[in-house]
């Protein structure tokens, strides 16, 4: 073949390829994978994980519970994700994104050439469809609230096959974080169900594996009711390691259901499980001293984002409802009363006795794990019964001869703390607080209630004096807790759903939170949220007590095991986990 013939053949080939692509209306299928620098391992093997409860669904729109979310997160992927180690938002299915229009318009460039786990291409149409489903009020997906900004759902438009434009009604700081855990859905599989109104029933646990496809590292292989759920490697996953090999390394991920934390730990100890996460300090200490767990990786990732706190019921009682509670509420409403309670609580003792030292004492709702947002200026006053007594005396309280604290009218200060009976840590915390407050002359009863019964009292009937609660934010950003700090919020626990802020400091918190939500300068946002934290520390509507450490364990041979402080604590990097050479590569037999 002469050079003329070769050139002619090449030109014809290029012409043919070009016309074929144009005819198909698509760009050449170059796969824009994400390469993870520094990640290198060996492929093969399986990992068995025991969950506390069975997942309830595989439908990303309706997976509320932790177990379902843990599985759904391995089957699917988001446009933008929060890196569980740095807590910063990073592009995932999005190759990049730009923010314009005064912080209202996000232009998201998708990675080209990606495929769902069933081999079908992922395009901007899937993104538009996914947002349409999440934002549909009739479907009622809980994520819908995340996607309502300034009272309107975010508007998602297709620009081209690999670009979408997301427009917000008003500027929203760090809006990209909203897209974490909003899994992209396959339009080719779910659009019909959406149109005929059966999307809520789609992807139940009993669905055929072929009917489910996602963009996560794994895809469904088998479900055995009540027993196990097996995922297999997604051959089209879009991340590759430092050497360009497609992730994940593990061939299979098997979820089994233990029923309790103790059972999870026993299965790990017996060699049935490759890892265990979300452990309490008691079980962590047990594993640490158990000879059979010798060699296992026991990791204390430090305090998480969960904050446990005591709060008083400040919700005004309907007239004539409960006169005695109204009297008690008049004490609780005094800032100095709450400050005195806070000063009397021995947080160090709580950390030591309840969490075996694996927790951090707290004086505000932002834990040390949230390095970007925690306000170092929030005071950490040492426990002082003497100081607490002075505050109470200044607020009109006094002590009867038998050392009982009484109010100005001579009524003994006596109230009940409700807590969840199923949470041993909080029940023990309540007992310690009961003892601490007895040193101030307060008579405190502790009432451990069944979890939902407690929620009913706190959130519906408001028939309680004080409660111990714990909240773990789904994100490190303060916007995630708007519902807690705004006086109109349903989770403004001490006095929820106020028509108008009932105190000046709540009004200021409302203003600061609203302003930081739309402020684009991170420095300004930080200053505003610092002020909110200072107001909370000064008035103590929630008396923060402790933040437990994130504790996890894995078998010795499991590499890249790196628990994070944001859920999912241990499986966030499942695509990078691998078994080292010479290890039993099933994770389902042998000792840790």
């Amino acid at each position, binding site marked *: 073949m002469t050079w003329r013939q070769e050139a002619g053949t090449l030109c014809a080939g290029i012409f043919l390829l070009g016309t074929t692509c144009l005819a198909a209306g698509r760009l050449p299928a170059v796969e824009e994978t994400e390469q993870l620098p520094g990640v290198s391992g060996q492929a093969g093997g399986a990992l068995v994980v025991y969950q506390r409860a069975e997942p309830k669904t595989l439908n990303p729109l309706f997976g509320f519970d932790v177990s379902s979310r843990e599985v759904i997160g391995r089957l699917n992927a988001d446009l933008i994700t929060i890196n569980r180690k740095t807590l910063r938002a990073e592009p995932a299915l999005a190759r990049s994104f730009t923010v314009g229009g005064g912080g209202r318009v996000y232009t998201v460039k998708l990675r080209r050439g990606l495929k769902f786990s069933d081999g079908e291409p992922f395009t901007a149409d899937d993104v538009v469809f996914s947002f349409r489903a999440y934002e549909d009020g009739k479907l009622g997906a809980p994520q819908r609230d995340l996607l309502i900004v300034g009272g309107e759902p975010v508007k998602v438009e297709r620009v081209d096959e690999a670009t979408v434009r997301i427009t917000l009604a008003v500027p929203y700081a760090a809006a990209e974080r909203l897209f974490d855990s909003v899994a992209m859905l396959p339009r080719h599989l779910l659009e019909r169900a959406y149109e005929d109104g059966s999307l809520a029933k789609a992807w139940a646990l009993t669905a055929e594996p072929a009917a489910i496809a996602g963009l996560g590292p794994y895809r469904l292989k088998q479900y055995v009711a009540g027993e196990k759920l097996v995922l297999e490697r997604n051959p089209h996953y879009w991340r590759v390691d430092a050497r360009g090999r497609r992730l994940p390394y593990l061939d299979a991920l098997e979820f089994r259901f233990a029923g309790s934390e103790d059972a999870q730990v026993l299965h790990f100890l017996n060699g049935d499980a490759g890892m265990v996460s979300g452990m309490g300090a008691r079980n962590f200490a047990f594993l640490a001293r158990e000879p059979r767990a010798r060699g296992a990786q026991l990791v204390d990732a430090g305090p998480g984002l969960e904050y446990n706190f005591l709060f008083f019921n400040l919700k005004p009682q309907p007239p004539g409802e409960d006169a005695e509670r109204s009297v008690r509420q008049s004490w609780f409403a005094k800032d100095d009363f709450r400050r005195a309670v806070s000063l009397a609580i021995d947080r160090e003792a709580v950390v030591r006795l309840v969490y075996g030292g694996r927790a951090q004492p707290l004086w505000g709702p932002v834990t040390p794990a949230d390095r970007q947002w925690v306000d170092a200026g929030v005071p950490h006053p040492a426990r002082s019964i003497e100081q607490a007594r002075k505050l109470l005396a200044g607020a009109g309280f006094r002590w009867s001869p038998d050392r009982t604290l009484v109010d100005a009218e001579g009524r003994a200060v006596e109230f009940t703390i409700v807590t969840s009976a199923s949470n041993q840590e909080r029940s023990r915390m309540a007992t310690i607080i009961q003892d601490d407050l007895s040193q101030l002359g307060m008579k405190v009863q502790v009432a451990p209630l069944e979890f939902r019964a407690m*929620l009913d009292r706190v*959130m519906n009937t408001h028939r309680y004096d004080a409660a111990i609660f714990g909240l773990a934010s789904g994100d490190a950003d303060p916007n995630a807790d708007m519902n807690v700090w705004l006086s109109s919020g349903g*989770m403004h626990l001490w006095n929820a759903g106020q028509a108008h802020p009932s105190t000046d400091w709540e009004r200021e918190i409302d203003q600061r939170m609203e302003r930081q939500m739309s402020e684009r300068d991170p420095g300004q946002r930080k200053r505003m949220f610092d002020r909110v934290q200072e107001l909370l520390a000064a008035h103590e509507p929630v008396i923060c007590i402790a933040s437990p450490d994130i504790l996890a364990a894995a078998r010795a041979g499991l590499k890249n095991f790196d628990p994070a402080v944001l859920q999912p604590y241990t499986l966030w990097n499942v695509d990078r986990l691998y078994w080292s050479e010479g290890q039993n590569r099933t994770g389902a037999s042998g000792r840790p």
Partner: protein
Amino acid sequence: MAWFLARRLAHAAALLMAVSAGTFALAELAPGDYFAELRTDPRVDAAAVETLRARYGLDRPPLARYGAWMAAAVRGDLGVSIAYNMPVTELLRPRLGRTLELAGVSWVLSWMAALGLAMAAAMRPGGWVDRGTAWLVSALLVVPELLLAALLVLVAARTGVPRLGGFSLAVAALAPGAAPVLLRHARAALREAAGAPFVEAARARGIGGGRLWAVYIFPAAANPMVSLFGLSFAGLLSGTLVVEAVTGWPGVGPLFLEAIASRDFYVIAAVGLVAAALLAAGNLAADLMLYALDPRIRRPR
């Protein structure tokens, strides 16, 4: 026979109605509902929770919900699980199979053990087997199934035998709980039959050994044991739910406990109904066997 069967079926239907209404009422009286926990997520608005509550009819009055559920249950539709968002029948089918397997094997084993030991004890009253079984029965009667299951889990966790979450662990926890009552009744029935005048007469005619026990004593003692047949299976089933939850056997038990904790109303009501139906079926089977075996029951009054 038809009248006898019709009466028994009517009793069973009334029992099912009463149990289902009672279960529904108890579940309803417990504070909170399935979506209460979702409300504690700061990122979820109360309006979204209300939409979800409405989807499952939780915004309707309890009586209306019970009526609609019962009407559907008669047609074999036990409602939709709020947690799993799938029909309760689909949820129950594989788990019920495992529960019946566990209860069935434990039932057979407990009957075999009870009958064997009762025969040995009744043949030589006051002998070492009799005294030994009396001691064993007392010991097993005072140990609740829950405690026995927990102890076995501890052993399994320490030694790896039997396997945690395995079938043998669940059977080992369940069968010993059912056997003592059966053993005690079987021994008493056999002793009573062994002392009957017709047995004395048979002995006087020189009949003894295995023939005396197989042909004379055992058939005469069968009547009270048959009554226990159905009841013991139903009793075992109720114990199964708790034992399953403790030992990790994936039957109805863990699902039922989880449903109670999360207020998955239709699962609670359905499990109550199915358990009552199995109890009624056990009783009915025992009644029919007695009807076949005992001519006094067949005789019109």
